[in-house]
């Protein structure tokens, strides 16, 4: 039982990432009808927002400390980050330590702006073009974004550690009544899961309980009629694109401590997220979230030693296999609506 629970927990963090990216993809697809191959790149840019913030915070100046010498006997040069000199050493160090959570605040406006610029600058011109063209142009954009990041940050993964206080693991098993040391779980992965749930809840609440969200939902159901009622639906959809970009970006920011970001992490997640969207049902937001978590957990079960010894490599292909089976038996996906992408 505890082993079972452990596998479910293990699948949650990847599942959360899939769910967040797939949610953004579905939002864009449901509102604008565009398949965004650059969505993985947005996830990656989010992760690099955290890297950038960390670098900005550790910008430092050098002072010479005459009382100490380094191993060559020269006076020791001490690097002090500007942040530490402004806020005092302790607060400054704490700010640098908490750079990943702080990057969330930094990333939201950045990602909204990137999403807005992308929609207005490029995708707007592709609504009337065939889906193939949309796929191709966003694919090109993904390559460009990826290469730009590679140019500035290099090709190697960059460590983005979580704050000191949130490293290490907790004994989850003991908390819920199993014996000690049965379920040890890293804190950050737990945080990632709760964070994902919060973001997903936030997006759903926004769509469900605000007037803006209501109009957007109406637009998803029948764009033309909403337009005829004198509502500028295009502007709202642009904002939704920005929000979808922000969701992907936030997912990326928080994912950094789990897996050091590199420039092609987006592409790796993108393909799987598409599979998630298809399994969940094109255009269905709850479907995307559900499928994201399910596939993440499934992948974790396929990675157990029992599974990999019975069927070597099953963890690598299980998601694709499930996707194929689902598409053949339930072509609309788990929760797909009728009439989406069927004309």
């Amino acid at each position, binding site marked *: 039982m505890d082993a079972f629970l452990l596998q479910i927990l293990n699948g949650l963090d990847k599942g959360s990432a899939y769910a967040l990216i797939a949610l953004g993809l579905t939002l864009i697809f449901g509102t604008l009808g565009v398949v965004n191959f650059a969505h993985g790149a947005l996830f990656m840019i989010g992760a690099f927002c955290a890297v950038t913030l960390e670098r900005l915070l550790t910008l430092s100046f050098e002072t010479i400390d005459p009382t100490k010498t380094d191993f060559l006997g020269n006076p020791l040069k001490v690097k002090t980050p500007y942040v530490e000199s402004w806020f005092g050493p302790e607060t400054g160090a704490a700010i640098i330590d908490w750079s990943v959570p702080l990057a969330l605040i930094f990333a939201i406006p950045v990602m909204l702006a990137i999403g807005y610029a992308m929609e207005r600058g490029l995708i707007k011109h592709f609504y009337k073009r*065939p*889906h*193939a063209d949309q796929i191709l142009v966003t694919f090109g*954009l993904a*390559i460009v974004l990826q290469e730009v990041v590679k140019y500035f940050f290099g090709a190697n993964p960059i460590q983005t550690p979580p704050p000191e206080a949130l490293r290490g693991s907790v004994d989850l098993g003991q908390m819920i009544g199993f014996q000690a040391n049965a379920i040890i779980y890293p804190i950050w992965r737990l945080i990632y899961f709760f964070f994902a749930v919060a973001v997903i809840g936030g997006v759903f609440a926004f769509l469900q309980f605000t007037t803006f969200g209501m109009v957007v939902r109406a637009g998803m159901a029948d764009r033309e009629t909403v337009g005829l009622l004198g509502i500028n639906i295009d502007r709202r959809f642009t904002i939704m694109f920005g929000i979808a970009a922000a969701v992907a970006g936030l997912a990326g920011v928080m994912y950094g401590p789990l897996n050091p970001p590199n420039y092609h992490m987006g592409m790796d997640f993108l393909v799987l997220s598409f599979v998630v969207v298809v399994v969940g049902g094109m255009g269905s937001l709850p479907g995307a979230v559900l499928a994201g978590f399910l596939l993440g957990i499934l992948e974790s079960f396929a990675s157990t030693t029992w599974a990999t010894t019975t069927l070597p*490599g099953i963890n690598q*292909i299980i998601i*694709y296999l499930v996707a194929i089976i689902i*598409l053949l038996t339930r*072509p609309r996906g788990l929760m797909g609506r009728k009439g989406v992408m069927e004309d």
Partner: protein
Amino acid sequence: MLGLGKKDTTLLIVVAVLTLCAPFILNPFPAGSAMAQFNAGYPDLMQRFVIFGIFAVGFNILFGLTGYLSFGHAAFLGVGSYSAVWIFKLFTYNVLPAIALSVVVAGLFSLLIGFVSLRRSGIYFSILTLAFAQMSFALAYSVLSNPKFNLTNGETGLQVYTDDPQWFHSDRLPDLPHLFGLSMRATHTMHMGDWSFSFNTGYYLCAVVMLLVFYLAIRIFRSPFGMMLRAVKSNQQRMNYTGLNTRPYTLAAFVISGMYAGLAGGLMAAMDPLAGAERMQWTASGEVVLMTILGGTGTLIGPVLGAGFIKYFENIFSKINDTVLHGWFGFLPDGLEDVMVFIVHPFIGKGWHLTLGLLFMLVVIFLPGGLVEGGQRLARWIRGRRAEDSRRKTEPAE
């Protein structure tokens, strides 16, 4: 001639002359001159032109005619390569059986994948093929290379070792892929003054194969079958309403283009007896899409042009470095020279992919018909005619 119309015959002859004289055409600059770096007439690169040309022509039969955008064609190329190397390992270094098997295996594999993916169209189809290709990549990269059952040799790539059986191999034959004793690496270099031209067996084998399959592609484009595929592209729904089942036609197109990809993979292995999983990655599939779009989707010559264009500039751009740039902009005043080098720097050398991505976006945005449409527009502009009425648009299957 050969059952082709007048225009098509001319096209085939032009392509034939170009490919067969490629060692001359691609080496316009004397060896050792400053411009020699723009020469492309060496065997390795010429082989790549032709092989990717075959790949793109095949892809175009699916995408250009039916509008089904597959993002998984690299899988067929990879499967073709693996089968060819297995022939080398088990039987003989002769390339004919290897190429034949790679076509057959890729055909069977695409039949399987096409049977499943073609149940859906539009975006679903693209994503399904993408998922299949990634699955094949994962299979080749790790799953099928465990000690118990090593089919692909994982990360190292499949290659021929000295202790492989090679039952029909004899000592008289070269220890490399060959055609009845004629090694693929055999190169005859001809010197004419400052110029040198190399004629490579492997290249000519590829060139002849490409001419054959190019001819086949023309026949397919002009056949009633090709007409049916175009009808699928323009309006599949209407086809279904007239009571016609389009699936056999699209499946046939899918398998044919998969076999073209397998052929390209087989030839690739024949030129260099090595097959790696990275050939199957989805970025490789993206590359062939790119070639087809860049050249001109749905045109005969477009994919070949696109493949040549991309492979040529990949080669050139990767070679240029800052020193070369300083040489180019040397005529400018010093400050300006550095600025120019600074601006161009991100796009060259390792930055080739950035250039490629930008190029791709620009082509899709401004020139959906690719180079061929660009050429036509240019020709019309020169002739001074208005272009609006005869512009054709490509519509995919929905």
